[in-house]
């Protein structure tokens, strides 16, 4: 029997430790509490059954507000305000406003009994959706929200200001229709004392923080709500009034320019710059919907997007064709470009005009970046050797054998050259004697290129170990990632940054090896990070180029390319240059991630570009090396 559940401890005394009513409580001798369906700042919201209808199950929502004011007079005023507002709401009849059935006060708690809405609120919908919500869906909800706000704003004798528009206050019922669930009624329960939070952080306009709330405040908050839905960026986690710093289309490029413009107008800092009324807001949404075809759902494809013109006006200064794919990164030394090629050759070209100077044949593919020192260019090859070739003649000076393919790029410091090999070792070779000073066995292939800073040599291996060795080849510390570290590290201000195939970008203290932070990318990465201006730039096989704040690990921006990003980005002046397996070389503003231009090659780009004297040099799998104006 249903009615048996009514028995039990008396009404409001039946509380859990955190002060919520337990299910089974009979509140006010009428409402049988079933479950907590929400927790707000002032108290909880329950689903309850109305026992005045014993023969049918009539569900209601019971909203509880706890009166925390210590002063009896203030408490009384609060209860009066609550009852006055409940009376106003009880007269409202609109499909998007839940009906009010009852209200009452017991001790220091006041209760509002409302229509139970069977559905989910937008915050829950957002958190349960993986990708972005469809633009036309958000547009439709926005139009419905304008309609119900217009109904409230046109209320006579006084307009009703909702004051608390945010995703969690908007329910979507089973007919995919919106219902506003939490009226500003609760506001009178907030104490206005010094040090108190005011408004709903993130969605409220600046003037609401000065105590002004009019129809323009609701317009702003609706704009903020739509911004959150379209971008999935929770404004409560951002500084107040910072929507201007997060343009919608930068985060979700699929959103139409038209809708973005409408929402930007609603989000203007100055109330006078917003729409005059919520009716104007709605008209603007409708017109954006018509222009984009979203309203008719005719055009679901965001096609015809105005893209930055491809290769527009970008003619290579020169291009040079090798006999096979260029997988590595070029080097500039004394006016010449040196680049390894999968045809086993190292090419030397005149940097000014791409004129062929010489080529030197190793016996395996060259995938790394060469390094030059005192007129000798050094590079590793898949023929297991490190080659030292005279830059003027292209003739071999000496070579050094390892027991595995050399894919790691060499680095020179203190008259020694350091590089890894697939023979599991890091080799330190003295440039005067051409013999190894030491080798360090890591237990797995070393394809990561060492980085030398503060008298330590940093590199990773294919078992996921990361090492810091001193100049004598002793391990100072090591750190274990979950998977291969093919990426080459970068050291900046005593922090080592590197990527791993486990999908993380790691920031590790350079002296002790303690992990400071890690940043999760969507897929594994072999890209080497670079640090400029306290920003870490890197890429991942998830196709993104990322910019991350070095101190806080906060993502500043990400840019989506058409395929995996395997080559490292380069920063030059105000721009970032990075290639992608989609064949493009991208040039972005490094502070914002905005695309400046892109240049199409006919094959994947896996190496890093080189920029020197305003010229970008980039090799592609299409066998060409290109020189472009930066």
């Amino acid at each position: 029997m249903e009615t048996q559940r009514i028995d039990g401890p008396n009404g409001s005394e039946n509380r859990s430790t955190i002060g919520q009513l337990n299910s089974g409580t009979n509140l006010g001798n009428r409402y049988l509490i079933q479950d907590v369906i929400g927790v707000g700042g002032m108290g909880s919201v329950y689903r309850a059954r109305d026992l005045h209808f014993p023969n049918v199950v009539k569900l209601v929502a019971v909203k509880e507000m706890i009166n925390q004011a210590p002063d009896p007079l203030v408490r009384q005023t609060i209860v009066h305000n609550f009852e006055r507002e409940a009376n106003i709401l009880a007269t409202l009849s609109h499909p998007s406003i839940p009906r009010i059935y009852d209200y009452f006060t017991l001790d220091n708690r006041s209760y509002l009994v409302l229509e139970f809405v069977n559905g989910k609120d937008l915050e829950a919908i957002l958190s349960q959706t993986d990708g972005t919500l469809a633009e036309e869906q958000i547009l439709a909800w926005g139009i419905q929200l304008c309609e119900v706000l217009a109904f409230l704003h046109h209320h006579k004798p006084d307009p009703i200001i909702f004051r608390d528009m945010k995703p969690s206050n908007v329910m979507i019922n089973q007919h995919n229709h919106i219902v506003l669930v939490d009226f500003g009624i609760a506001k009178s329960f907030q104490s206005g004392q010094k040090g108190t939070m005011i408004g709903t952080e993130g969605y409220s306009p600046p003037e609401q923080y000065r105590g002004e709330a009019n129809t323009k405040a609701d317009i702003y908050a609706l704009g903020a709500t739509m911004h959150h839905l379209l971008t999935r960026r929770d404004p409560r986690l951002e500084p107040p009034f910072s929507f201007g710093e997060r343009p919608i289309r930068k985060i979700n490029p699929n959103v139409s320019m038209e809708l973005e413009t409408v929402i930007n107008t609603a989000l203007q800092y100055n109330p006078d710059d917003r729409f005059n009324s919520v009716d104007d807001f709605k008209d603007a949404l409708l017109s954006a919907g018509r222009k984009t075809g979203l309203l008719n759902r005719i055009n679901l494809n965001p096609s015809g997007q105005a893209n930055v013109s491809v290769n527009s006006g970008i003619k290579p200064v020169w291009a040079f064709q090798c006999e096979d794919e260029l997988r590595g990164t070029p080097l500039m030394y004394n006016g010449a470009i040196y680049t390894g090629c999968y045809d086993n050759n190292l090419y030397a070209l005149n940097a000014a005009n791409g004129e062929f100077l010489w080529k030197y044949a190793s016996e395996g593919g060259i995938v790394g970046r060469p390094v030059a020192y005192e007129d000798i260019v050094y590079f590793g090859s898949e023929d297991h050797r490190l080659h030292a070739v005279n830059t003027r003649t292209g003739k071999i000076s000496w070579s050094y054998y390892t027991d595995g393919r050399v894919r790691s790029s060499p680095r020179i410091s203190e008259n020694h050259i350091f590089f890894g090999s697939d023979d599991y070792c890091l080799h330190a070779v003295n440039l005067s004697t051409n013999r190894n000073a030491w080798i360090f066995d890591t237990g797995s292939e070393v394809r990561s290129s060492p980085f030398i800073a503060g008298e330590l040599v940093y590199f990773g291996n294919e078992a996921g170990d990361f090492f810091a060795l001193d100049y004598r080849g002793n391990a100072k510390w090591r750190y274990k990632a979950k998977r291969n570290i093919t990426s080459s590290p970068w050291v900046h201000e005593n922090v080592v940054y590197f990527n791993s195939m486990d999908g993380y970008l790691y920031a590790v203290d350079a002296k002790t090896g303690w992990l400071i932070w890690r940043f999760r990318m969507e897929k594994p990465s072999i890209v080497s990070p670079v640090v400029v201006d306290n920003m870490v730039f890197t890429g991942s096989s998830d196709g993104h180029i990322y910019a991350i704040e070095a101190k806080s690990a906060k993502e500043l921006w990400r840019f989506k390319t058409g395929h995996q990003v395997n080559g490292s980005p380069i920063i030059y002046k105000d721009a970032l240059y990075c290639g992608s397996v989609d064949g493009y070389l991208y040039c972005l503003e490094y502070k914002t991630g905005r695309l400046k231009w892109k240049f199409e090659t006919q094959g994947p780009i896996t190496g890093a570009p080189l920029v020197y004297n305003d010229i970008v040099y980039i090799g592609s799998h299409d066998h060409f090396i290109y020189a472009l104006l930066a």
Partner: protein
Amino acid sequence: MLNFFRKIFGKKEEPVKPAMDNIVTAPLSDVQLQSIRAMTVNRFEPSQLLVTSAQSVGRQRELNEDSLFTLSTTIAGHSSNAPFGLFIIADGMGGHQYGEIASNTAIRAISDYILKKFHNTLFHLPSIPLEESLQEIMQAAVAEAQRAVLHEAPGSGTTVTAALVLGQQLTIGHVGDSRGYLIYSEQRMEAITRDHSLVRRLEELGQITAAEAAVHPQRNVLYRALGQGETLEADLSTTPFPIGGYLLICSDGLWGVIPDDEMSKIIFEAPTIQRGCQNLIAAANAAGGPDNISAILVQLLG
């Protein structure tokens, strides 16, 4: 195949093949060896933290609602010892019930969480390396404090600024308007936290000036605090501890009364950091002491 034999017969075999092109190889000369060794001399300098803290209820409040926590030691690192320090200030929100409980709960929850994580390291017990990063630990500690404050002092609120020093890395977790400053040896003072206050935000947006912010009637209104609001995102950052400089953590009872350049002057003019810290508190009281005053001053030696 070669690798296979090497594994069987050990690694003693010289892996280097003779160089080509008439290059004669020779062992390193003593001079060469010396120059290599000179680069890598292992000097042992005990790097450690010098810490002091001070607190005053101020001259206009009856209750102290600030809480502070300091702990300093050194831990055995992978190859050398590293200083380890944890410093926290929490300022319970005035006008709220149980502000002092909130601030005390916050420092306890954060110190508990972090010290438990480093328990084995601190006591030199066998341990597996921590999976989480320093920033993840700090973030989880602040989230733990948020839970604890909501549970133990519902309806109250507190700021919290926590600094974890490990080696030369200083990791900050921050909510509210207490502040962390780095003071460099050339007396330059830099705030490394950002106030989560309404006036600071309005100031950042150019809506009001710094002078207006200092006297704004709502200058105590925070938009983010522990125990307030449903979601909480702490600001996290890691910066190098300045060599020859200081870390100062303080509540608004200090920075709201004494200008930044005045604070750094007081610190540099004092003969010891203990005196400097006390002089900071005294200066705030001399300026009226409108609020509780708490300060922690840390120096990295070695």
